[in-house]
């Protein structure tokens, strides 16, 4: 095989990495380079660019190599795939990261890899990149390392000392699908590895409470990804799995990735455009669970055959199914009830609560506190507004359902 030049390797290994949805660079410790080194992190990550798929480009997202000895059918890099293969040396990845970073293209690096030789060998290579960046180049930017669940715990320990975030992908919401589609992976060892990471993260937080000098361990925590639409799991099952992962392993995020057709896709998998709206609804449901005080059962109760409504956001779907709880008097209702009003976000709720201590809210005030009053009107009461019977009217669903959006224009200037 002819040696690929740098540019071709970059093309192959970026292609190979694009199915990982995460590009987050938020929530790590604050650092800067005023005392030396290169780079900084603030509380909030920065999206340096956006691709036409609407996804942010915050990190240089690469596979160290897309050679892989596993045969996960949903993955373009599986051993049985005909995709072109390439491999970067750790030094090449380091040079590219530093070069991109100095030009302000990126916040840092998200490095993953196909499994080569053994899980330990692969993990060692990933750790080596992070170590070179931190120790040889004084790199203070963000590093996210994919963690190989079967790797030696000592390597994972080392990874956490250099990386801001570690992640292990659960890949599929159903264990049985993982066994079927990814025979070399084991759902139980994935969960155990996540549990191990949670214990290590908590231990490090405890140590840092005792001494500010204790080394940090993955200060931006752990996350995971689930592929949506590659197996038959309905949304209800996905939401339950997510809740189990959030509560059990304190994940910062569960990413949902609509299964995307891959070159030379095996016949066992659906061949279709990715279910992007479904993915979007799952993210909304995920938000309801994490920030709006909804229980899994409440979210699941408003699904049909376990599937979220594609035409209504899940909070609206819940409200429509629970009209007896509305209208909510925005001048009296406690915070957790305000959070249930469709169209009202966490920040608006906080503003409302501060403001109503000073004066009773009118409809015009609510209009300024929110983006879309129209759909909210049937669900709220203010000093000068009550929806009357409209909350219970048969036409409510039609009124709050967005008109079907025309197929997305391909013209940039349309």
């Amino acid at each position: 095989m002819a040696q690929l030049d740098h540019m071709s390797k970059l093309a192959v290994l970026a292609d190979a990495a694009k199915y990982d949805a995460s590009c987050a660079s938020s929530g790590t410790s604050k650092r800067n380079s005023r005392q030396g080194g290169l780079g900084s992190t603030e509380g909030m990550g920065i999206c340096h660019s956006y691709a036409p798929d609407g996804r942010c480009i915050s990190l240089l997202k690469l596979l160290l190599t897309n050679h892989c000895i596993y045969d996960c059918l949903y993955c373009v890099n599986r051993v049985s795939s005909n995709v072109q293969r390439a491999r970067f040396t750790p030094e090449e990845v380091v040079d590219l990261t530093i070069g991109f970073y100095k030009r302000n293209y990126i916040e840092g690096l998200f490095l993953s890899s196909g499994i080569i030789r053994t899980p330990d060998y692969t993990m060692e290579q990933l750790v080596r990149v992070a170590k070179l960046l931190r120790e040889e180049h004084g790199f203070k930017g963000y590093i996210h390392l994919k963690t190989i669940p079967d790797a030696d715990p000592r390597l994972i320990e080392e990874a956490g000392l250099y990386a801001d975030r570690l992640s292990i992908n659960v890949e599929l919401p159903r264990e049985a699908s993982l066994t079927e589609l990814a025979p070399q992976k084991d759902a139980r060892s994935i969960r155990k590895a996540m549990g191990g990471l949670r214990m290590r993260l908590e231990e490090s937080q405890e140590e840092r409470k005792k001494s500010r000098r204790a080394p940090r361990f993955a200060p931006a925590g752990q996350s995971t990804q689930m592929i949506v639409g590659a197996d038959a799991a309905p949304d209800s099952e996905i939401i339950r799995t997510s809740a189990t992962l959030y509560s059990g392993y304190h994940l910062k995020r569960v990413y949902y990735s609509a299964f995307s057709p891959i070159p030379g896709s095996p016949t066992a998998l659906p061949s279709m455009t990715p279910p992007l709206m479904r993915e979007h609804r799952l993210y909304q449901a995920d938000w309801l669970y994490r920030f709006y005080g909804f229980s899994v059962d409440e979210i699941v109760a408003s699904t049909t055959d376990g599937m979220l409504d594609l035409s209504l956001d899940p909070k609206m779907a819940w409200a429509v199914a629970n009209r007896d709880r509305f209208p909510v008097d925005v001048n009296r209702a406690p915070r957790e009830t305000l959070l249930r009003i469709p169209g009202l976000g966490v920040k608006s709720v906080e503003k409302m609560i501060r403001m109503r201590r000073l004066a009773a809210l009118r409809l015009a005030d609510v209009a300024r506190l929110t983006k879309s009053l129209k759909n909210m009107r049937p669900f709220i009461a203010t000093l000068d507004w009550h929806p009357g019977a409209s909350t219970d009217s048969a036409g409510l669903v039609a009124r709050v359902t967005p008109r079907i959006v025309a197929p997305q224009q391909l013209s940039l200037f349309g």
Partner: protein
Amino acid sequence: MIAVELEHAADFDGWRAAARRLAEAGVDPADVIWRTPGGERDLFGADAPMPEPRADAPALRVSRSFIDLAQRVVCHRDEERFSLLYRLLLRLQQQPKLLEFVTDDDVFRADAMVKAVRRERHKMTAFVRFREVATPDGAAFVAWFEPEHHVVRLTAPFFVDRFASMRWSILTPELCVHWDLEALSFTPGATRDLAPDSDRLEDYWLTYYAHIFNPARLKIAAMKREMPMRYWKNLPESSAILGLIRQATSASEEMIAAPALVAPKRTSKILKQVEAARPVAPHADGLEGLRREAEGCRRCPLWSNATQTVFGEGEPDSEFLFVGEQPGDMEDLAGRPFVGPAGQLFNRALADAGIDRSAAYVTNAVKHFKNEPRGKRRIHKSPNISEINACRWWIEREAELLQPKLTVALGASAVRSLTGESHSVLKTRGQVLTSDFLGDVFVTVHPSYLLRLQGEDERRREYDAFVSDLMKARRLVHG
């Protein structure tokens, strides 16, 4: 009319000094014109002098949050920003909580300005693109950027934090900022032709941009919302966007239509090697064999919400078998029984009762953690009878291998599991019941019961009672 001449477009200090004097003199906002170099020229003639500072003026009250707000509002391009702030300053003297009235016209407008400025600052941190140039002092990095608001001074410290070890300049039409490794300096605005027009890594960046894009997920509106087109002319990667969109539909359709490919020849050989390399634990009998068998237990649905089976552990020749209810949060993660808070309390009580934990065997009636996810926590749920019955199979096997002299049931679930009957623990504690498969079963409370007690006295009393139960159990064996 009083005209205030500010030093630059975002001159917060100048505004503050002038606003204080004006406010102390009680000057009406309508009588003040705020001028900045490069700002719109007004047609008013300034005919009144600036009031002299007054020593006897009442102190102005402003909160930290107003200062934060004002420091951002001055960066907005709105010509009325300084007069809006002055009006707010005066109103705040009457209404100290005014800023919480977020729907008030002035507050609403100021908040919107803050939001726009914050966003523009953020976009500047995101979209500045440095190009490397050679200088006599070594490499330097230069960018051309066109901000919509006066955010250069506000954003400069971000670039110092990040690139303190590089020489860099950001040129903009209104104001340029430079870092020479030691200090920031500002110079008047520049033109684009003063900035370099290429960089050796830009082709790599474009290659990366093109290949990290997934053509099957075209979402142009989302891209344009976050990266508005007005920024594109200074983003090298924007030159690739149109081509990527044009190819996307056909690329995605081709991918969907393409037949499944024949796997490369090496595939089966590699997969066989992976299979052969899979670590196989040596065959084990006894408790170790049983533990491994239990790893894959699916006798009831509780496995699906848990991390792993938590099997019993301890001394196989133990005289005592302690049976709890089920693993908790920590046990589930660690894969070992009685390691969480209740386990620690249990160890202490055992020691106080003169029983050596390392010489005992501990296990649970149910071997998976039953819980309900709630936010970031898992709420413990007691196992029901069918779950206890399903898991009894494992206790029976453990009992056969251990043959303890005495079994201690900790709590109601253990009693149910061992005797097949429900008994009130508080009524039967300290008694010996009978199990079909284990014989004598001594009953006491579960240590987590002690953790749930509120009062200090009650907790001490119940702890002592627990220890005395354990002593009684010890005496039953040792006489």
